[in-house]
């Protein structure tokens, strides 16, 4: 049987001379640049209102009052444009879109009516205790039924601690002016615009990592 060992034993030594000459090797490498397929632009436009701002701004501390502060949001004309003495519901939309397509969400979950059924909600959120409120003006994706506008209230989250707040406000009778001027009278305004005397109490107690108890008691006296 032919084996590896016998083959090695019978092999004769081989001597080979190899000559190597060094030579400069030149190579051309072409590096071409191409813009990566990364979309760095977006039509999504968002505005964030921090909790600090929500508590310091002179508004009725309601989501509806905030919509008046976003330039691209529209509310149907008329009484919707009045000052919100107490939190009220309004129907809002975006400039150029349908008037009632604005969506209200809490931490991304829609709490409003169906589109065409109002769009917003009469639920009064305690936005002064929110972490922030994010308004999406346009370019939203699947997080909402519309690409804009939507108003998302982001509640506070955090550790194992109790948080609470109470807010009390009031408008004494003598602190209300009158704009029933001669000019207004001349335009045929049928009666003097009565004073709004408003009182409101809101409270909220919660453990930071759990749902809490919220309450709102607002009322306007007069008309």
């Amino acid at each position, binding site marked *: 049987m032919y084996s590896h060992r016998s083959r090695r034993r019978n092999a004769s030594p081989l001597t080979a001379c190899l000559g190597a000459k060094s030579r400069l090797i030149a190579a051309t490498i072409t590096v071409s640049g191409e813009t990566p397929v990364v979309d760095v632009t977006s039509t999504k436009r968002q505005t964030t209102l921090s909790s600090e701002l929500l508590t*310091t*701004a002179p508004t009725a501390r309601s989501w509806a009052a905030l919509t008046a502060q976003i*330039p691209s949001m529209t509310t149907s004309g008329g009484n919707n444009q009045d*000052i919100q003495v107490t939190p009220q519901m309004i129907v809002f939309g975006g400039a*150029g879109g349908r008037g009632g397509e604005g969506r209200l969400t809490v931490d991304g979950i829609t709490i409003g009516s169906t589109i065409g059924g109002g769009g917003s909600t009469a639920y009064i959120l305690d936005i002064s*205790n929110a972490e922030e409120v994010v308004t999406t003006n346009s370019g939203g994706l699947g997080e909402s039924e519309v690409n804009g506008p939507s108003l998302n209230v982001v509640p506070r989250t955090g550790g194992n601690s109790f948080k609470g707040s109470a*807010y009390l406000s009031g*408008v004494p009778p003598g*602190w209300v002016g009158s704009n029933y001027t001669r000019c*207004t009278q001349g335009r045929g305004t049928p009666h003097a615009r009565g004073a709004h005397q408003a009182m409101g109490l809101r409270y909220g107690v919660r453990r930071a990592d759990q749902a809490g108890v919220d309450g709102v008691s607002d009322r306007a006296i007069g008309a």
Partner: protein
Amino acid sequence: MVTDNLVVTNADFGQFSVVAPVDRRLPGGGGYPVAGLYDVNPAFGGQSNTLATFADLLPTAPLQYQRYNGFTLDVSARPRNGLLFQGGINSGKTVTDNCAVRTLVPEISPLNPYCHSEPGFLTRWTGLMSYTIPRVDISISGTIRSDQGAALQANWSAPLSAIAPSLGRVLSANQQFASINLIAPGDVWGDRVNELDLRVGKVLRFGRVRTTVGFDVYNVLNSAAVLTYNQAFVPGGAWLAPLSVLTPRFAKIGVQVGF
């Protein structure tokens, strides 16, 4: 979406026009024709078998559109510690047209001839500012907004005597009047609503408890912008009389306690 009454076709409608009453409050003093109005043939008055469908599924697939051209500029800035500004402007115009659909299906709005609406640019701007004075913990804030007023109408109850000469018959269902808007959208606007609100607040801290006492003044300019109007037009009557105006200037005190 279009609600098509399958009982009738556009051939079952009579077309007419009215002449707006002479009134100096109307554009050009009135006396102009308002054309493109429809009334269903009395033989079909009150009959309906409606189908809600898409416009492009109708015969000839008539075009209807709503186009918006505009811009929004939002600025959010914190130029220094404790100072915050947020605001912007939005301006744009919306053009809507459903004339082709209305010609095919007049029942969608027989008495509204303004199927092509181009009211022009509407501009709205808002601003919001907040500044907390360091060390004393006093915050000063304010909001300002300027809203376009609403597009107004002149809804005239046109009597049969103003309609019959053009229509050549009486109105269907024995109606004696037809409510017709005499002005196109965007011809007459309500007051622009300008509002300035201010607030001063003081933060008091007692251990874990944070108390904020705030004093707010709303409608600082005491604007009396009219919000709603009487839009029923009667020649020489109370058309555009204000029904409600902006709430007058008032002050509010508020306390927030948080822990």
